[in-house]
C-alpha cells in the first residue's frame, strides 16, 4: 500500500475555492428574502453535502474491502469517514450560525433536516470507539467495514425521509416549483461545491499519504531494530499484509 501526496490537486483546490468565495461576495446578488446572511449558504450546504457524499463513498470503499479483502480499501474508508466527520463539524457550526441569524435560535429541534444531519453525524462519531474497541486488527477492519456499509445506506434513506417530511422550515432551493436558485446564485453555488469537494479529496489524499508514511516508517524501524520495535507507535489502522501491498 502506497499513497502519495497530491501535487496539482491542492493548487486546483485553492484556485476553485478562492474563485468561488470571490464570486459569493463580489458578483452574486444578495437574496431577496434573507439578504446578506444567505451568503452562509455557499459554505454551509457544500460542507454538509460533501460530508454526506463522503460517508457514501466510505460505504462503497467498505464494500470493496469486504469483497477483495484488500486492507487498502479499509484505510480509504476510514480516512473518508474521518474527513467527512470534520466537514460535518463545519456544517453543524456554520448551520447553527445561520440558524441564529435567520431564526433567532442556534438550534431548532423540530426541524427534520437539522436533526437528521445530527443523527447521521453522531452515528459516524461512534465509528471511532467501535473501531478501536476491537484489538484484533483484521476483525477491527471487517467490523468497521460492516458499520460503514450500514451507516452509508442510512444516509440516502435519511435524506429521502427528510424530503418526504411535512415540516419544511428549512429552505428548499433546488428544483422547487418556484424555479429554484437564480442562474448567478446557482453558478456560484456549483463552483463553491466543486471547491469544497476538491478540498475533501485533497485532505483525504494528504491523510492517506501521512498514514502510508507512518506505516513505512514503522516497517523500517522494525527492520532496523528487530522485534524490540514491534511495540513502537505506528498507524492504528490494520497493518497491510505483504501480498496486498502495491
Amino acid at each position: 500500500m502506497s499513497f502519495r501526496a497530491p501535487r496539482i490537486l491542492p493548487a486546483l483546490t485553492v484556485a476553485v475555492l478562492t474563485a468561488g468565495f470571490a464570486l459569493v461576495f463580489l458578483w452574486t446578488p444578495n437574496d431577496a428574502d434573507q439578504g446578506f446572511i444567505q451568503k452562509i449558504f455557499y459554505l454551509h450546504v457544500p460542507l454538509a453535502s460533501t460530508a454526506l457524499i463522503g460517508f457514501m463513498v466510505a460505504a462503497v470503499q467498505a464494500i470493496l474491502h469486504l469483497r477483495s479483502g484488500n486492507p487498502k480499501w479499509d484505510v480509504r474508508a476510514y480516512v473518508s469517514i474521518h474527513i467527512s466527520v470534520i466537514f460535518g463539524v463545519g456544517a453543524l457550526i456554520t448551520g447553527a450560525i445561520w440558524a441564529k441569524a435567520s431564526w433567532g435560535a442556534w438550534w431548532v429541534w423540530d426541524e427534520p433536516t437539522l436533526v437528521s444531519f445530527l443523527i447521521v453525524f453522531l452515528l459516524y462519531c461512534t465509528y471511532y470507539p467501535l473501531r478501536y474497541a476491537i484489538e484484533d486488527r483484521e476483525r477491527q477492519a471487517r467490523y468497521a467495514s460492516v458499520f460503514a456499509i450500514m451507516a452509508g445506506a442510512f444516509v440516502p434513506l435519511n435524506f429521502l425521509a427528510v424530503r418526504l417530511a411535512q415540516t419544511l422550515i428549512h429552505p428548499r432551493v433546488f428544483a422547487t416549483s418556484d424555479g429554484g436558485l437564480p442562474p448567478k446564485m446557482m453558478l456560484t453555488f456549483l463552483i463553491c461545491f466543486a471547491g469544497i469537494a476538491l478540498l475533501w479529496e485533497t485532505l483525504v489524499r494528504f491523510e492517506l499519504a501521512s498514514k502510508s508514511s507512518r506505516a513505512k516508517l514503522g516497517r523500517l524501524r522494525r527492520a532496523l531494530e528487530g522485534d524490540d520495535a514491534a511495540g513502537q507507535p505506528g498507524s492504528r489502522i490494520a497493518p497491510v499484509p505483504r501480498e496486498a501491498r502495491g
Partner: protein
Amino acid sequence: MPALPLDEAGKYVAGAYVVFLALLLIYVAIMSIRLSRIDRELAELAELAEERAASGERRPASAEEREEAPVG
C-alpha cells in the same frame, strides 16, 4: 423573520467563514505536527542505519586482521 441589516448580518457571515478557516488551519497545524514527528523518526532511523553501516564496515576489517595475525 425580516432580513437582518448588513452590519448585523455581516458579523454572522464573517463568523461562519472564520469557523471554516479555523477548522482548516487546525487541520493544517495537526498535519504539520505529524509531519515533524515523521521527520524526527526518520532522522533517528537514518542515524541508526548509519551506525549499523559504520559498524558493518569495521567488522570485515577486523576479521582480516585476525586472519593475518600469526597463530600460536
